[in-house]
């Protein structure tokens, strides 16, 4: 009788568990899970009443029924917890997915300014030369006739002076027409070896479509033992390739500057027409980018260098011209108009 009773209880528990499993399987959300929990584990559930009435059972049956009931409770609690966590995560996921987000609304941009194109290109060229072991030197923009002309082998009445229309401050003080005076200033203060470049503003009395009264140059000077024309060629070819691209051809044309000899103008092949000739290169297929030459030995006399011991080369290039060729800017004046829409492009 007692055993029957026990079997009966165990059987009903087992059926209850089956019911539970069925219900849990069908549960669709955490709310259902909550209801199942109340139904099968709540105060009015079979397991609760079984445990509540366990005192009425014989002392042999008590442990059996008690243990079995607790096993069922534990099992149901675990399964409920598992199911609940699974459903919770599904529900959370669903809630996230339901958020409406316009990913293409404009973001909050940090303010972006811009370096001037001239500064950027100067810095780029400085970096190239710094990498080759050059120092960067500076000099005054208001300069004496001596440094700007005289010591550069361009005495009064020299025909080359007429190529430089000069702004004068007094008879013998002027706005430098090129960065070359720094060559002399630097050599006066330093003994060879000299490896420098000199970026800076220069001034010429010319103002029209293709001239501004102020523009920017980079000067270069190398003086050392055994420097020759081949070194000049290698250095400037290397720099031209760095600035304009490895695929550009570079050529050297004889020219005349009072303070170099032999003197050269350096051209790179036109990128637009690939050398065939176009409007930009005035049909020649070449674009002039810089002037250069072996330092005229006369200069060494001004700075007390021994012409038999050292030799050197010098060069100068116009930054605005480099910018125009590289970026296709066609109006020189736009560099100094400072239109924000121009500035921001670089």
């Amino acid at each position, binding site marked *: 009788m007692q055993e029957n009773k026990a079997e009966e209880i165990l059987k009903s528990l087992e059926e209850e568990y089956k019911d539970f499993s069925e219900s849990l399987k069908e549960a669709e959300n955490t709310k259902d899970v909550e209801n199942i929990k109340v139904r099968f584990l709540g105060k009015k559930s079979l397991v609760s009443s079984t445990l509540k009435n366990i005192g009425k059972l014989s002392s042999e049956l008590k442990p059996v029924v008690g243990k079995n009931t607790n096993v069922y409770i534990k099992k149901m609690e675990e399964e409920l917890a598992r199911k609940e966590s699974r459903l919770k995560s599904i529900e959370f996921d669903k809630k996230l997915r339901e958020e409406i987000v316009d990913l293409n609304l404009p973001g909050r941009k940090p303010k972006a300014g811009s370096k001037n194109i001239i500064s950027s290109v100067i810095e780029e060229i400085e970096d190239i030369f710094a990498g080759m072991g050059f120092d960067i030197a500076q000099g005054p923009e208001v300069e004496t006739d001596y440094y700007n002309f005289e010591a550069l082998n361009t005495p009064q009445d020299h025909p080359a002076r007429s190529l430089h229309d000069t702004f004068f*401050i007094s008879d013998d003080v002027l706005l430098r027409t090129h960065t070359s005076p720094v060559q002399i200033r630097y050599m006066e203060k330093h003994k060879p070896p000299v490896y420098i470049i000199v970026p800076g503003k220069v001034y010429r009395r010319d*103002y029209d479509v293709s001239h501004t009264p*102020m523009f920017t140059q980079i000067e270069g000077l190398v003086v050392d033992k055994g420097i020759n024309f081949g070194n000049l060629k290698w*250095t400037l070819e290397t720099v031209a390739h760095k600035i304009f691209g490895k695929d550009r051809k570079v050529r050297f044309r*004889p020219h*005349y500057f009072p303070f170099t000899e*032999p003197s050269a103008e350096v051209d790179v092949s036109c990128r637009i027409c690939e050398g065939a000739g176009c409007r930009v290169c005035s049909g020649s297929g070449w674009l002039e980018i810089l002037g250069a030459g072996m330092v005229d030995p006369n200069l060494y006399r001004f700075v007390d260098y021994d012409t038999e011991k050292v030799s050197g080369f010098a060069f100068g290039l116009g930054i605005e011209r480099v910018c125009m060729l590289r970026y296709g800017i066609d109006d020189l004046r736009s560099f100094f108009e*400072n239109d924000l829409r121009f500035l921001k492009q670089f």
Partner: protein
Amino acid sequence: MRLTLNWLKEILGRNDLGALDIADILTMSGTEVKKVEYPAERFKNIIVGRIIECSPHPDADKLTLCRVDAKERELDIVCGAANFRKGDKVALALPGAKLKNTVIGTSRIRGRVSEGMMCSEEELGLSDESEGIMILDDRFVVGDGFAGAMGLDDVVFELEVTPNRPDCLSVMGIAREIAALKGIGLRFDDPGYSIAEDKGLDILIKDFGLCPRYSAKIFSNIRGQQSPVWMQARLKLCDIRPKDLIVDLTNYVMLETGQPLHAFDYDLLASPKIIVRAAKEGERIRTIDDNIRELAPGMIVIADESGPVALAGIMGGKDTEINDATKNVLLEAANFNGPSIMRASKSLGLRSEASNRFEKKIDPHLTLFAIKRFEDLLAKITGHAESSGIYDSFSPVERERALTLRPQKVNQILGDPLSGQKIMEILNGLQIPSKKEGDNIQVKVPSFRYEDLEREIDLIEEIARIYGYNRFSSNPPKVNQRAGGYTPYQKAVRDLRFCLSGIGLSEVINYSFISRATLDRFMLGDRTKELVRIINPINEDFEFLRPSLLPAMAQNVKDNIKYRIEDLPLFEISKVFKKAKKGKLAQETNMLGVLLTGRRQKKGWNSEESFYDFYDLKGILEYLSQRYYPQQKLLITHKEFGFFHPAFSGTARIGDIDIGIIGKIHPHLSEKLEIAQDIYYSEINLDLFIDNIKTEKHFKPVPVYPSIEMDIAIMVDEKIGSHEIEQVIWDAGSAMLKGVRLFDLYKGEQIEKGQKSMAYSLTFRGDDRTLKDREVEVEIERIISSLSKNLNARLRQ
């Protein structure tokens, strides 16, 4: 300079020269060919025709029907001009010819067919205006191409001759270059001259320094006539307007030899005496361009006994000019002092083909050669040249120079080894005699290169130039390794530029010039006292060097606003100038200008519109101060400047150095500039700012104990500055006080008038322990009591 291919061929005695080849070798040897023109292209399908019949057009008063012989066939042409007769030869444009961008075709004019057109000089582009059609003289042959018949079937080179090569300002000089480059044997030998024995002309050179040589010859019984078509064509192609035979010949010979010539009407000279002298004060001359020129001492004149008859080397005088009645010509071929000619031509504002050549110094030996060439051409053209011998006055000058050339030096400069033989071959090609002597080469520089070949290095350039620059190999310098790179100053400027562009500012670069009017408008105060002034400015806008970056940057604002670009965070790093206290140069100071105007933030879907204010600008200075002077504090001291709003105006100081100014542009100034928005501006003396940066940094261990933040709010007199309050807080706090941050400022109805409420967040931290609340409370109490004692501040509850 311009010259033509046919002319070169004639001098070189070679017919096999291609235009593009010549252009290329000249360019690659230092005489850049800027342009190659083909003038004949314009005259395609234009031939010489002859009118064989003409009759009035039946239906039009002003038109004539012509039958024109074009050799191959006869054509009907309707013509609107009236200046021709039967038998005249004309320039006939056949269908297909292009005149002034119009293609000629067969057309019907008032019912009559016209199979082409008879052209005027204007239509042919040969003159600016013309009456009627161009009538060709008898020498033209019917059926010939017009361009060829006119001497225009040629190629024109536009050359850029460098100033060291006056010898190349001539067809002969360029021919010499080509000969050297192409290995053509070419020599210009002295033809032999007949020097006058008589005293028919007296030449008096007062100063051989001004005129080393004056050669002349008198040609008699000249008949006024036009120069031949071919000569006119060459002159025109070289941009010289033909006049009459004598004048054309002087120009032609100048272009060919490089020696300027001048022809006087001999009979108009007051005396058979030529005086070459410096002009006298107050002397004047009417030049052939019909201008009266005031002469100044230092200018050279050619005078007869009555006064100046020519401005030597620049332009002849009107009174002795060649004219239709000229019978006897005095031909001058002289050599004048280059610098004197340059100065005179500059001060008179008068440049000519002659002055351009003299400026660059011409070979004095050329005078006789040029006279001889003139004579030969005159004889060839007119079949007659009745003339005197050559009158020649000169001071003997050394015009041959011996130089020693060391092949080893050649190679040292050029890098690649050239043999002595190759070197001599190049020199000989240039008509520079040389011979080997031991290891060296002895060179005899001829007269025509005397000016530019003075030293060994000049010869080395010649060798490199003719050998070809692009044939030398390129080699990296054999440098001992060098570090190179940037000075601390240069690094700082680069870093500044990087930082400022990184926080939203755009870098401008303005001209260094400023006008008097702008200086006045900006009331730059002390800075206008020691201005650097340009004595020859382009115009008044460019008269001074700027003492401040502000005016130009304000102008940038104005210019951008024109395009509705109103939000402008800008900076500039440039020099400002003033007279130096010592020496003759200027005092140049690198300045950083920072300017903010317009909106800090536009209205967006997630942001409100806001405008730049003073504290945005101050914040930038604080950022820079903190970056480069982390141990120091930036302090703004109120000081008025004329261009700033009197309240928003001060100096900026870091530590004990005044580094610049900061303020808001005075509303009156903005109004004058017609800028209707607030502008904030700061100018920092970069030289001071950068020179005082301490570059070395020392690591401080990162704190390991947590910090505690406490807030206090006080009420103080609104005149008390925030830096005073902060100073009191710092002074009262112990070493545990690590930070003071103002987080609220209130003035208004909630509090007493004349007071303001300032709320600070104070950060405390122990270096060796976690602070207890009680410790911090003691700190706060001490700070509050100090604020109350020193600033009469009250705690705001």
